[in-house]
């Protein structure tokens, strides 16, 4: 998608908006003194006054966008993507040091596609895309607690407030569409900003949280209504004039109080908000989609309605040039019963994800869009109550699709029962390094100077899994 601005969704009034704001853009961004801390190692923005304008990656690659599907609560890898015949064989045996007894998956696995990838029966639709899936079976992280592990999944670190993966991506690459946020998080959980925060990165790189359809895990279809998106008192031109005045006052304030992060944040937020008024309602207007598409995503009803709608919105966003879209699904914490709780959750996501892959492929966007699916950790292959599984950060599964990764591949492995990653272990740092690499960013060179030190997403870690790159 070299010309994202050609998207019909966003064609309207763009020219006018650009003319109306061209004088202002530089003024608005000139106040970004914190930008001075950006690493010289990142690409130069096309528009030097606008840190959000697109930048060249460190090296050319296919992937330009990310759709990050995160499953909050920690989905059970051994029942979904990590086929463990020996776990079934050893069902009921004591799990050794760990306590509890091993519990084979109650779901059957079979091979799919030419690649013969083993997948659980819980994913009948996704199975049809087997040859596009790159399973990462050797994931591991440092925390077995949800909030901290979620924070690590998103920021690499759970002890300190650090920027999220999306913020780093936006910082590294900028965004193609100045009328939409470069980084969108659909329904992040309340009370935890780790998934979209910018931390010490300039405020422009913060994810924009859009609550469409309520909190994750609440069920129901996603609503595509954005509150406060129109002003009944002023027309566009009048509002632009008003906003220019507001921004002049803000700018003055910023000169009076240089390096004031808040004022700069406000300035950025207005520019984006004004453009979003036009672009977002169009983007979220799903009436432009055919009923076949809606049905393909399972967005019309049933369990998949909400996640399906969000996946469809994610596709439309990527199509419109949004750099990074995150969709969260909650409710994967299945301590009480895998048999009862897991199938309905999988039903929520199976068809939507399969449709997303297929849809991006048929639009020629799959190569440049990296779909990443992961929980914050996995679940134990053993059980203490005979039916549920507990937290396991030592081994779990994620998968990637498109964006220049190999399809039909199973990378890394856990031990014979799925307790810990043993073969080509992929720590969350490695996972991050690989994602950045797929986007053409060297995780060691993507740095930002803060408190006298150059920080990076992967801290001092991160090994790229070159093997999965096509």
């Amino acid at each position, binding site marked *: 998608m070299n010309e994202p601005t050609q998207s019909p969704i966003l064609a309207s009034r763009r020219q006018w908006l650009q003319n109306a704001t061209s004088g202002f853009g530089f003024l608005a961004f000139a106040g970004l003194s914190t930008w001075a801390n950006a690493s010289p190692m990142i690409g130069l923005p096309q528009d030097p006054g606008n840190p959000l304008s697109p930048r060249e990656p460190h090296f050319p690659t296919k992937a330009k966008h990310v759709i990050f599907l995160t499953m909050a609560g920690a989905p059970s890898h051994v029942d979904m993507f990590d086929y463990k015949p020996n776990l079934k064989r050893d069902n009921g045996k004591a799990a050794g*040091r760990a306590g509890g007894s091993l519990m084979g998956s109650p779901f059957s696995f079979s091979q799919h596609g030419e690649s013969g990838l083993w997948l659980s029966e819980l994913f009948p639709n996704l199975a049809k895309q087997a040859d596009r899936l790159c399973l990462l079976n050797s994931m591991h992280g440092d925390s077995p607690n949800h909030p901290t592990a979620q924070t690590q999944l998103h920021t690499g670190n759970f002890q300190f407030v650090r920027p999220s993966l999306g913020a780093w991506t936006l910082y590294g690459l900028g965004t193609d569409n100045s009328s939409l946020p470069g980084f969108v998080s659909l329904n992040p959980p309340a009370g935890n900003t780790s998934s979209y925060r910018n931390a010490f990165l300039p405020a422009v790189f913060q994810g924009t949280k859009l609550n469409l359809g309520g*909190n994750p895990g*609440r069920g129901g279809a996603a609503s595509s209504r954005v509150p406060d998106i129109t002003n009944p008192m002023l027309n566009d031109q009048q509002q632009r004039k008003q906003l220019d005045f507001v921004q002049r006052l803000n700018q003055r304030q910023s000169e009076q*109080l240089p390096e*004031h992060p808040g004022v700069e944040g406000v300035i950025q937020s207005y520019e984006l908000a004004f453009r979003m008024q036009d672009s977002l309602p169009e983007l979220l207007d799903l009436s432009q989609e055919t009923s076949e598409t809606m049905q393909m995503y399972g967005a019309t009803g049933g369990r998949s309605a909400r996640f399906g709608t969000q996946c469809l919105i994610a596709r439309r966003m990527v199509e419109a040039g949004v750099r990074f879209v995150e969709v969260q699904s909650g409710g994967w914490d299945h301590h009480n019963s895998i048999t009862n*709780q897991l199938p309905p959750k999988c039903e929520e996501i199976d068809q939507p994800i399969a449709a997303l892959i297929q849809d991006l492929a048929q639009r020629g966007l799959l190569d440049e869009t990296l779909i990443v699916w992961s929980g914050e950790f996995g679940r134990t292959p053993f059980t203490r109550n005979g039916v549920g599984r507990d937290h396991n950060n030592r081994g779990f599964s994620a998968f990637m699709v498109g964006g220049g990764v190999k399809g039909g591949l199973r990378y890394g492995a856990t031990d014979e029962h799925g307790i810990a990653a043993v073969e080509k272990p992929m720590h969350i740092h490695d996972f991050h390094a690989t994602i950045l690499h797929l986007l053409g960013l060297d995780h060691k060179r993507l740095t930002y100077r803060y408190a006298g030190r150059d920080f990076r997403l992967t801290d001092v870690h991160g090994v790229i899994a070159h093997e999965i790159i096509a």
Partner: protein
Amino acid sequence: MSMHRLKSRLPQIFPELFSVSSDSVISFSWNAFGLRFAPLALALTMGVSTLATAAVAQDEMMSEQKDEMMSEMADSPPKERPPVTAEQAAFFESKIRPVLVTNCYSCHSQQSGRSEGGLDVDSAAALLNGGESGPAIDLEDFESGLLWKAINYDGLEMPPQDPLPPHVIEDFKVWLSQGAPDPRVTNVVRGAYRVTPEAIEKGREFWSLQPLPESSVAILTKVVQPHASGLQASKPIDQFVELQREQQGVSTPPTADSYTVFRRLCFDLLGVPPTAEQVDWFQGLWAQDPEAAMSTAVDYMLASPKFGERWGRHWLDIVRYAESTGREVNMPYPQAWRYRDYVIDSFNNDKPYDRFLKEQLVGDLLPSQTRAQKQEQLIATGYLAMGPKTLNERNPRQFEADLIDEQIDVTTRAFLGISVACARCHDHKFEAITQEDYYALAGIFGNMATQFGGVNSQRTRHTTNLIELPLADEQPAMPALKPEQLAAMNERISELNSEIRELRREFAQSRRPNRNRPGNGNSGGNNTAGGNSNQTGMEQQQRQQTLQRLNAQVGSLQGLVDCYDKDGNPRTLCMGVQPKPRSTDARLLERGEVNQPGATIPRGFVSLLDKSPPKIKRDSSGRMEFANWVANAENPLTARVMANRVWQHLIGEGIVRTPEDFGVTGSRPSHPELLDYLALRLIENKWSIKSLIKEIALSDAYRIGWQVDAIARDKDPENLYLWRSHPQRIQSESLRDSLLWVGGTLDLDRPHGSLVAQAGPLELGRGQQLTQLLVRAAMARPQMDAAEGDEMMSDSMNKDGSNDARPARPNRENSPLMADDNPFRRRDLANANVVAINEATVNRSFDYRSVYLPVVRDLLPRSMELFDAAEPSMVIGVREQSNTAPQALFMMNNELVRQQAVALAERTLEKTGGSSQAIDYVFKTAFSRPPAPDEVAQCTAFIAEMTDEFGAAARARDAERAAEQERRQRRDARNRRAQRERNNSNEATPAEAQTQANSASNEISPELQRQVMIAFCHAILATAEFRYRN
């Protein structure tokens, strides 16, 4: 009984109360009760309509406390009971286990996910532990064990269908009399990680656990005195700060200008900016004597009731104040507002902080001189009761354990700045806190009954009574009922109850014959009845559902009836705690699992925090001792933690930046001696929060300004050492209050109660229904403008009220809700049929201070949620300060902002007549300062620009209208006869006529002037400056 049958029956039962509307939801008319009373209507409606909504379980992932440290676990030998011999194991496996599996597991096992009565029988420990009625097995005297009694149908009857055959009961006798040897492996292991006594000893060396120095003077003598001659600062606080700056090599900032300082003070102490008049007043004082001016202003503000509303909210943030349980069921707490008011009043009255803490922990135990004092103390204990709760938790022990855990977690983090709850499942990983410490506290907290209320419903498994208060409300939140109304409700309850009994009988009967069919001795008998039993299963399921539904209806009605005394007067109730009759110790739960109780732990305190803690007498619950130990000058944490909070709320960042974590994972104090000094000042001033606030607010540190200093920035990027100020984005409540304040529409009176109180006790289910509740309970000014109407009116209500389905207006005189002095008076409670609503509507329906908005978990008003209000299920000591595009959209477009822009514009025009004074007035009102000359120029230019813009738009509109009128006249001329009426309705509105008139004369019309002033004021409200306290 199917839904259909129920629906068709209700009108028969109460023909005057129900009418079945076309959309298949039973609507409810209040004519019969003769008053506006939404809750019951909703209760009854929901009893039926919520059935359609399947309960969607949601895993509360973020609230998950259990810390599964798999890698830390190790096998350890089972404890206490003698090992099971091979012979015993064989007996159990062949004779006992199969019986349990076949007859009991379906209702009593983790496997089935059902633990009826809280009992599981699938592990040895679970049996010993028992359920709601007590342990299932009595090891001492097996015949008094509940399991034995139940299988003998002695009091309990298990299995419920048929008694076990005599020979099986014999087997159980053998097994139980041997001490119920149970070979089932339960894999109970304690975490390998143990906190050693040495670690505890070492942990006590940590900075925050050191005893405070003997006095504030002593610290000054020790720390400041030696350097006093070289210091510029004269006030103790500033001397500490200056010393630190020197040591760190960062520069001293300039002092902020007097306007900035005054604005700071107003936001920090009151939560709203000063008025233009107050700005001038303060400047006059400052010009004479800045120190005196500050002192006068601080005293004035500390005496204002607005102070408590601002500082009370800080406290509500950390004690997770909310008016509903949250989680899946989300049942409201209609009495929670009393605690909110208690907190606000306590801050306003400068209640000594130690007293304040004690009242919250042991208000029910403290002696009281007057009934009013007793009332206050009881309400204070609401603190312990209003945490988030999983009301659909099946296992009552789990519920109890979670309740206690939540109380321990909040208390230790909010009052002591340390997290003890981490030790619920294993010894604390980072702090030297053992699992024993946790269960020592759990014993204390377990010795009280937490009374949070609630009503029975399909999904609620836990309800309690509330506490009756000694003094009745003068203005009850709910209207009184007439005796006949109460009688009607009671009658309905007994009807429902008899229906339930009937159904139960049917239920029981239908189960028996199937198993006990005569001559059906062989197993093949069941096959022949296969089709039938399937059908029976369906019927059973239906019965079961109907039962649940009826129970829920009874629950809702009973919940409502319980709010009244026998004469129909609302009872005055509160949430809180009461002592339990008997004091006991808690048992340690291995890995936090309620089914794995271990050793009994004597009640006590956290050993890390106190080497020789006070003893707890055997017959004492320990709660009073705990409260005295917490609210104590000797406790190293209590005063430090609170002093740090006060500093943080005034300076912008705490001396310790993790206000809930003074432990090893928290941050270290930037000014340790200053923190000790402040803590001691708090204690020495009899725990007066106001005195501490005053001392900090009068310091120079409070007045520092902004500077750019590259050296300081590199050395101290976090600004730990105060080389410049910490600008704050004003908090959500302050932002909304400020908008209303500058618009002149903020209602400063405290509303009585809360929206949630008016709604009464209900089960609400998920968020959407709750929104509806708020609407039903509170909504609705009788007249709504069209814009609002479009958004919020459903087809069930017409603007003119002509819809027949709408209940008649109640008699205002009869209802206390409609009394003139009731702040909710305007909200026409009878408009209970308004259904469609968005959060913004709730948000803008009230003009009192934001601290009084309903705080319903998972459903904060948009203006709160968007601007980082405290998440009400968590302990929030530091709020986020985000700047997002949705916030920008809110400020640009939201109706609340637009309305206040209009109000400010009108005020401004009124006061200044639109003269050059207007800009000055708006700046002072919104920014608390006069405009600079260049700003006046910018504003003037903008006003001129918008005058042209709107003028041109108006002229274009006029021209268009004129053309249209001409066209219409021509057309009308053609169709004069047919279109006469239409012609009449075509007159221009007065405003339009005015514009037309003015466009002709080319003058600035008042309407145009107003329009421009609105646009100007709106712009001012939208600036960063309005949103910041610098």
